[in-house]
């Protein structure tokens, strides 16, 4: 099904739990094995969608796209943060925003921007190509920009 051994174990367990939870809806019209396979198939699709969300497509890509006109010019130009805001103030807001990222994007952002490691090194650590690390970094910064703009680049506390 395209999952690693650990993830496959997880999936099967998950499917059995759902099977037990939904047993009262089982009307005996199908064989138990068919019913179980159906649940497993459904769980696998769910998980695949979650993974896709995390890695292959990200709605933040559309947010970025929407900021440009067809000719590649800004249609929603960025507003530079107030110069008077101290890095420490933004850092407090950033810490809150980092919690909202997917684990992989958070790792990439932390390694690239906090540890200041080059993309090649980060690529080896997270096991993704340099290009993919660039995409993940770009998405992480996109999410963080949206979050920081909501907070006015200041922590809510």
């Amino acid at each position, binding site marked *: 099904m395209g999952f*690693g051994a650990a993830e496959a174990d997880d999936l099967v367990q998950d499917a059995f739990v759902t099977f037990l939870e939904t047993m009262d809806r089982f009307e005996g019209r199908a064989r138990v094995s068919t019913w179980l396979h159906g649940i497993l198939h459904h769980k696998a699709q769910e998980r695949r969608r979650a993974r896709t969300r995390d890695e292959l497509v990200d709605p933040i890509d559309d947010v970025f796209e929407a900021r440009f006109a067809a000719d*590649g010019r*800004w249609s929603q130009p960025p*507003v*530079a943060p107030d110069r008077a805001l101290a*890095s420490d103030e933004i850092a407090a807001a950033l810490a809150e925003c980092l919690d909202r990222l997917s684990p992989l994007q958070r790792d990439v952002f932390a390694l690239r921007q906090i540890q200041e490691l080059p*993309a090649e090194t980060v690529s080896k650590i997270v096991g993704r190509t340099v290009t993919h690390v660039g995409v993940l*970094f*770009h998405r992480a910064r996109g999410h963080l920009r949206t979050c*920081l703009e909501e907070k006015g680049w200041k922590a809510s506390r």
Partner: protein
Amino acid sequence: MMTCKEVATLLSTGELDHASWLRRLAVRLHLAMCDRCAAFKRQLDAMARAAAALGRRLEADAPADLEARVVDRVTRTPGAPDRP
């Protein structure tokens, strides 16, 4: 001539770091002429400074075994091979 979208993407992905000198020069020229992309770059710079500040703060009050735990977590769950 590079578009704003190309410039913003090169900056945001970090790809500019390993772009050719010609491309880097083109981006510099674009930034000198384009207020909007310059504002975008200032956002990225502010984020980078904040991340550095956050890093210093975390370092000051991180538990001693944090690094070992992070390394352990990262090495225990290696990523699946990449799709092109």
